[in-house]
């Protein structure tokens, strides 16, 4: 069996360059020769070998002890009391035990192979990547035979109808995604409107107590929800409604406010209300600086200037925060003059 001596023989034969194309290289790559074997301390000195053996079994015993410790720690540091310190101790000591057990096991195994086991170098020749010519011909014949006998290439109508059936079998899975959208409702419309309607009172988050204009002092920032939201239960879409309707209420000196004529009646005596949902990717924007009147979004550092209609002054947000038009009712409570006049939050397909 000649190929047992050189398994790469037929592969080498296939590498033969064509005489017309071959370029003679003056410094061809040399085969790296096997470096001379270097004896380790453990090979030369029996005392060193003894030490290495001792280290290895000590590590294994240490791992054993750590495993036993982890079991003991489970009993010694119970978490039944529920106290935070007990939970921490339980996690810490069991974790240390298991961690040390696995680490010592691994270190011992590696040290064993490196220092104690034989480390003689030898060359293991890899398998040939290229099959023998006879094998390659046989494989090609197998394909041709299969095609011939099944008629896959010949009977195009069978083949094409099967491909169509396979492709169609995926379609039901894709259609199921439609079930993630709100039932019976247009998702675009849902994104465009919030809970705010004309006359809806502004209320404290989370209690839902309404806010009087007189209660909002200069420099305040009040976190606001629609009054009706506080009565919603979590099973009735509380979070979905809140995520869209959250508003930040701020009071500035009226002369500091720089309002456009069409929004002149959207504020009340220096009190302005803006959507808290960032127009970039929808993080809650509520880092309000009462001296600079800047609002900062903590996620991507978009900054909005509340004194100038929440215009974007820095960062990736594409447009100003939507303003909630407000006024007061007969009892002095702040109410919405209307809902938001534009969709809140980040861009979506129908809005850019």
């Amino acid at each position, binding site marked *: 069996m000649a190929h047992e001596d050189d398994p790469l023989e037929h592969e080498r034969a296939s590498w033969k360059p064509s005489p017309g194309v071959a370029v003679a290289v003056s410094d061809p790559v040399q085969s790296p020769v096997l470096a001379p074997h270097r004896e380790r301390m453990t090979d030369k000195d029996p005392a060193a070998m003894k030490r290495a053996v001792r280290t290895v079994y000590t590590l294994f015993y240490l791992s054993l002890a750590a495993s036993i410790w982890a079991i003991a720690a489970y009993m010694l540091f119970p978490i039944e009391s529920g106290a935070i310190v007990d939970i*921490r101790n339980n996690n*810490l000591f069991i974790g240390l035990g298991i961690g040390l057990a696995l680490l010592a096991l691994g270190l011992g195994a590696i040290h064993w192979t490196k220092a104690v086991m034989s480390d003689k170098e030898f060359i293991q020749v890899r398998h040939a990547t290229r099959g023998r010519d006879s094998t390659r011909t046989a494989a090609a014949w197998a394909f041709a035979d299969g095609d011939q006998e099944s008629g896959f290439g010949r009977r195009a109508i069978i083949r094409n109808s099967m491909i169509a059936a396979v492709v169609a079998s995926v379609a039901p899975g894709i259609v199921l995604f439609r079930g993630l959208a709100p039932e019976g409702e247009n998702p675009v419309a849902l994104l465009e409107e919030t809970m705010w309607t004309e006359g809806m009172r502004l209320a404290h988050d989370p209690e839902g107590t309404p806010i009087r204009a007189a209660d909002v002092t200069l420099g305040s920032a009040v976190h606001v929800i629609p009054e009706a939201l506080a009565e919603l239960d979590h099973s009735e879409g509380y979070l979905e409604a809140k995520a869209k309707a959250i508003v930040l209420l701020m009071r500035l000196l009226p002369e500091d406010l720089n309002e456009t004529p069409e929004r002149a009646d959207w504020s009340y005596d220096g009190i302005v209300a803006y959507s808290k949902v960032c127009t970039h990717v929808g993080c809650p924007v509520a880092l309000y600086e*009462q001296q600079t009147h800047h609002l900062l979004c903590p996620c991507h550092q978009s900054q909005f200037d509340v004194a100038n209609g929440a215009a974007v002054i820095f960062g990736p947000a594409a447009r100003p925060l939507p303003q909630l038009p407000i006024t007061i009712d007969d009892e002095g409570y702040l109410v919405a003059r209307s809902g938001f006049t534009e969709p809140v939050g980040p861009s979506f397909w129908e809005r850019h």
Partner: protein
Amino acid sequence: MARETKRRSNGRRSPWAAAALIGIGLLITGGVYAGASAAMAAGSETAVTSALTVEDGKKLFQANCATCHGLDLQGSETGPSLYGVGELAVEFQVATGRMPLQATAPQAPQKPVQFTEEQALAMAAYVQSMAPGPTFPKEETLDGEGDVARGAELFRINCAMCHNVAAAGGALTEGKYAPALGQTSSLHMYAAMVTGPQNMPVFNDLTLTAEDKRDIISSLLFLQNNESPGGFSLGNLGPVSEGLFIWIFGVGGLIAITVWITAKSN
């Protein structure tokens, strides 16, 4: 030996003499300075024991604050008017070391307190007597016996976006920041909510009632007094510090072990 005796007879000093002289001089200067400052400290200590009046507060104010805030609290180009800020704001600014301001910067930082509590209270009483404003709360508000869970919810809604959900503080714009609250006293938590120092919004008693404030203070005191259940908190800054830690020490450790595994044994 012979050379040394020759040198001495020439009247030349050893090369170490200069160094020794400087050392002795430094020791004496330092010793005298330390003694003198200790004596001064002892002197100021005795001065504090006597209660200070509004009149003392006025003098302290004129000497230390009036340059920027004006002799009549009217303010100037370098400092705001103090009309209506109230004694609570003065106590907060002075007793946390924010005032007197050391340098103009985006934000007045906390620094070693420049006045004793009595002096701060005397200045606060003076400012309150000139133009009243928010005043000290009832004992009960600061006792930390409120509803911790409700306080934590209110903290998450109203405060956590700037001060971090674990009250570890956080960055604002252009060098400003919300400070960490791990060392803040309950009075100063209350004062900050009521007076809105610097860029912090005001949370008056109608936005957050006295009961709300008591709950928030209770939850912050609970955080201060309870160890982190997760061991190393890494500053409670979340993914930034945790990611940095795991990339440096976790991945670094893996690389070190990989190098050890592939290195040949000696």
